[in-house]
């Protein structure tokens, strides 16, 4: 026993000393590890000097099939891959349509009811047919894809697959063979026919079937299983030309031709993906696109990362040689006539939360970033002229700030069917005008958006034909023009009170003394929304109006709007294309939400406005069209079915090693224009991310000091037992 007692503490000491030493060695090893290289680098070392563009996405894209896809989360990817016949010029503003795969922007031919060709300026009512012939450029090749792979005898290799042949396959890369073929007009026609397929739920089918000849009947036939039904509205003219025939004059049609819906789809791809064996492997056209664009998908793990690589078969395309004023000075034309794309690989990482995304951008691990309200003050300062610039801290890193007004409008819509706030009498107009004046959106954008909004006077944002700045463009029912300051000034709250009194609510009370209570339906259930609601409430209290907030979930809210069961809501619209029609239709009577399930959530229905809209929508941009737009604007400014709020301004940051970056809200296929200086990035990352290890040395010191008393105590105990 004695021997045991003698040995046990000694062993304990050895063990503890040994354990302490091991811990110290591990800690020192960690310090050594952290001291070497850049331990916070989230990318493999092999990528250090590669020309890769790193960016993020915060929502998993759901659809990559261009027939279905209709959200910005998806467009940012598929617009790099699919190529409709037209695109927007990368640099010019206002947005200008230019050919992409087409040889030219097609000019429609108009025909009257008697079949005779009409001149270009023919009035819409005389046009019975509008024919667009689109000629695509020869020699454009599809990306390498197994759907085109052929065996030696020329048959398609992967078009009769069994389950055993694709066992374990999860993505396109698993197929060892790929092939390609030339893009033809038939691919575009095939895609338009897919748009008519009701099984695919193309979101613009309901719009286009009112225009394209035979689309509605073809769609109905497909619904009944008649796959060989005629579709006279689209036809292949020759290998490189196809024709689309419309029932009426519709100048906006060319804008649709710049959207992914009208991208080419090879029939081989659909046949390939429709094989049961492939479907079973969850390999679908909705996940693995087949395009002719500058990039193709290399890795698709939608819940983690999406990697695009340069399409090996991409044709020779050049960087634009002209832009808008200031582009040359900004260096945006330095690469004029250079072959694009510049970047061979693009990695998108899923980052749901803004804070880590922002910090990684500052560390140089993402090449560009947006700015949230939380970081706005540290990222942006306003100079003497009131223009936003990057803060000193960002300038020290040569981070560049770029802003652009979005082709978007936000508005507060009154329900024109409501007994209290709706209606078209002068009193009701004045009531809505008074509320519009009281809700001071200059103040709102300053408080809640850090100035990232242009206060709106009509539905049209800057850059859209019909938008007018200066005195001519103001809403005269809400603003006066200050000649000295050369800017609009919101009418006073006193004037708003007078309007309210004239509307029958002096001091916010009706003739019986009942207070005017207006309910505001919304889905603003986040913590930050409370301040906005309070702001609105206080603004209306200035008029004596009580605002009742009815916050609900999105489903209930949507149902209320759909049923016209609300008084006042906040809503927004992002343009499909840069044309006044795509904004002014939001107040077109036959688009009423409650009656026709359209996009007119205010249910505004003014016959004069409707008439003007019908005339305007099919006109070319011209002084006549502008005069109608002005008239329409005056009507809605007077009737005030909306409180015009603001057009958002996007603030984007990019590092100095990213070249040619320019915001483009409508044309998403812009990756091909970007250039990255990988060496400069690597140097900056190295300089910005040197690890700070002294706290680890401190921990090591504390650890050693902490173990000394323990060792001494044990040593004393050992001495006692001896």
């Amino acid at each position, binding site marked *: 026993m004695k021997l045991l007692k003698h040995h046990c503490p000694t062993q304990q000491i050895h063990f503890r000393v040994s354990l302490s030493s091991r811990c110290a060695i591990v800690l020192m090893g960690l310090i050594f590890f952290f001291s070497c290289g850049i*331990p916070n680098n989230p990318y493999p070392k092999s990528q250090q000097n590669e020309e890769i563009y790193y960016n993020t996405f915060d929502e998993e894209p759901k659809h990559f099939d261009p027939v279905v896809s*209709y959200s910005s989360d998806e467009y940012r990817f598929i617009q790099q891959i699919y190529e409709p016949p037209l695109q927007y010029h990368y640099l010019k503003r206002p947005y200008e349509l230019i050919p992409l795969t087409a040889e030219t922007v097609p000019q429609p031919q108009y025909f009257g009811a008697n079949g005779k060709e009409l001149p270009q300026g023919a009035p819409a009512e005389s046009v019975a047919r509008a024919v667009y012939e689109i000629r695509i450029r020869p020699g454009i090749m599809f990306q390498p894809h197994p759907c085109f792979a052929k065996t030696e005898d020329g048959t398609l290799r992967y078009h009769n697959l069994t389950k055993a042949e694709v066992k374990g396959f999860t993505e396109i890369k698993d197929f060892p063979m790929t092939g390609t073929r030339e893009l033809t007009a038939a691919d575009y026609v095939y895609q338009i026919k897919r748009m008519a397929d009701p099984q695919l739920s193309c*979101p613009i089918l309901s719009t286009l079937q009112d225009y394209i000849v035979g689309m509605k009947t073809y769609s109905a036939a497909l619904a009944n299983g008649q796959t060989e039904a005629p579709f006279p509205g689209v036809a292949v003219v020759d290998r490189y030309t196809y024709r689309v025939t419309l029932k009426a004059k519709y100048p906006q049609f060319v804008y649709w031709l710049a959207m992914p819906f009208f991208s080419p789809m090879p029939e081989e791809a659909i046949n390939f993906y429709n094989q049961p064996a492939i479907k079973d492997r969850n390999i679908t056209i909705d996940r693995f696109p087949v395009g002719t664009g500058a990039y193709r998908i290399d890795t698709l*793990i939608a819940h983690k990362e999406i990697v695009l690589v340069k399409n090996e078969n991409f044709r020779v395309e050049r960087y634009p040689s002209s832009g808008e004023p200031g582009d040359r000075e900004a260096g945006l034309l330095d690469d004029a006539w250079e072959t694009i794309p510049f970047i061979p690989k693009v990695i998108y990482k899923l980052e*749901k*939360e803004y804070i*880590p995304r922002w910090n*990684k951008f500052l560390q140089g691990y993402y090449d560009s970033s947006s700015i949230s309200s939380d970081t706005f003050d540290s990222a942006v300062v306003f100079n003497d002229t009131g223009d936003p610039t990057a803060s000193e801290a960002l300038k020290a890193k040569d981070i560049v700030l770029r802003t652009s007004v979005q082709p978007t409008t936000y508005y507060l819509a009154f329900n024109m069917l409501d007994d209290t706030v709706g209606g078209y009498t002068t009193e009701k107009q004045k009531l809505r005008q008074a509320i519009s004046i009281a809700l001071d959106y200059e103040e709102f954008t300053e408080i809640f958006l850090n100035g990232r909004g242009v206060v709106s006077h009509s539905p049209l944002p800057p850059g859209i034909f019909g938008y007018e700045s200066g005195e001519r463009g103001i809403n005269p029912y809400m603003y006066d023009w200050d000649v000295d300051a050369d800017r609009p000034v919101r009418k006073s709250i006193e004037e708003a009170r007078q309007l309210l009194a004239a509307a029958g609510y002096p001091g916010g009370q009706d003739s019986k003394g009942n207070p005017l209570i207006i309910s505001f339906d919304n889905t603003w259930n986040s913590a930050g929304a409370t301040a906005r609601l309070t702001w609105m409430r206080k603004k209306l209290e200035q008029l004596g109006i009580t605002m009742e907030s009815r916050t609900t979930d999105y489903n209930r809210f949507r149902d209320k709007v759909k049923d016209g069961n609300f008084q006042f809501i906040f809503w927004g619209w992002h343009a499909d294309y840069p044309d006044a029609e795509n904004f002014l239709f939001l107040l077109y009577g036959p688009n009423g939400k409650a009656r026709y399930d359209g*996009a007119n959530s205010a249910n505004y229905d003014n016959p004069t406005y409707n008439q003007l809209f019908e005339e305007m929508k099919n006109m070319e941009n011209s002084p006549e069209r502008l005069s109608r737009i002005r008239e329409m604007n005056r009507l809605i400014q007077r009737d005030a079915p909306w409180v015009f709020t603001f057009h958002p301004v996007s603030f984007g940051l990019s590092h100095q090693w990213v070249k040619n970056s320019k915001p483009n809200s409508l044309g998403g296929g812009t990756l091909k224009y970007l250039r990255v200086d990988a060496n400069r990035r690597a140097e900056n990352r190295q300089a910005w991310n040197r690890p700070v290890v002294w706290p680890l040395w401190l921990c090591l010191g504390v650890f050693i000091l902490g173990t000394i008393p323990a060792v001494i105590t044990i040593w004393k105990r050992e001495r006692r037992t001896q």
Partner: protein
Amino acid sequence: MITYIVRRILYAIPILIGVNLLVFFLFFVVNSPDQMARKILGEKNITQQDVDNWKKQNGYHLPLWFNTEASGISHFTETIFYQKSVKLFVFDFGTSDANNIDITSQVVQRMWPSLAITLPTLLIGLLVNITVSMIVAYYRATYVDFWGTIVAVIIMSVSQLFYIIGGQWVFGKILRLFPISGYDTGTDMLKFVVLPVVIGIIAGIGGGIRFYRTIFLEEVNRDYVRTARAKGVSEAGVLFKHALKNAMIPILTNVVLSIPFLIMGGLVMEAFFAIPGLGSFIIEAIQAQDFAIVRSMVYLVSVLYIIGLLLTDISYTLVDPRIRFE
């Protein structure tokens, strides 16, 4: 034992049916199939025809519970509930409503990143919690116990979000020792999991110390401990040899019941560290009103929970021979 296990499995069937019924009821109280369709198809330019087409393609055109137009057993089988629920019992989760991806393959893919974070957090956290709680219990009624308890309460009182953002800020941004967020496979995974695991352990240590300290204090007042002390066993021996062994039942209960949540991952942790795990999968499905994923994941959690409970009961017999299956 086998009879017991079979009996427990049979008990599980009505529980799972009940869970399915409840999920179905709760989901469709909040969402109608029309609302699901509109949410999934998007807001712009969607017509009722598109909604009807989507419902038909995805099997949501049928009545919810009872089909008045059908006859016989089809009254019940030609319903959304039957069509969507029966396959779950053979673990055929089908495809998601939003984008037709295979749910089973997603679960298999995403459970590993979740486990990469939660498993080390659980195991190392358990080791740390037990060790610290024993030390605190060993020094009971001293300043070590007092301050240990106070620190534990403080740690418990702080939101996990604070630890996450603070940890990212200190270790990722200021000291630049770890990537702020991200995930990779293979050995590269290590540099991404260390920070979330450390944060997970620190965030859980307060509750752990409080829980295990209570257990150990309860044990040290029992007769067998008094006997051990009377025999001359050292205080450390009493705690680490005798008390720990006898405290295994609540420890095991705590550990085994957390198994389903290991696989499901941490919702906030995964979002902030960009971990492509199952936590974010569920949250996204709820936001997207994707009933296929919601019902599958709830079903999976229920099954794992039942398995966890069964394993807990079995593990009791291993640590305490007095317990028998009856």
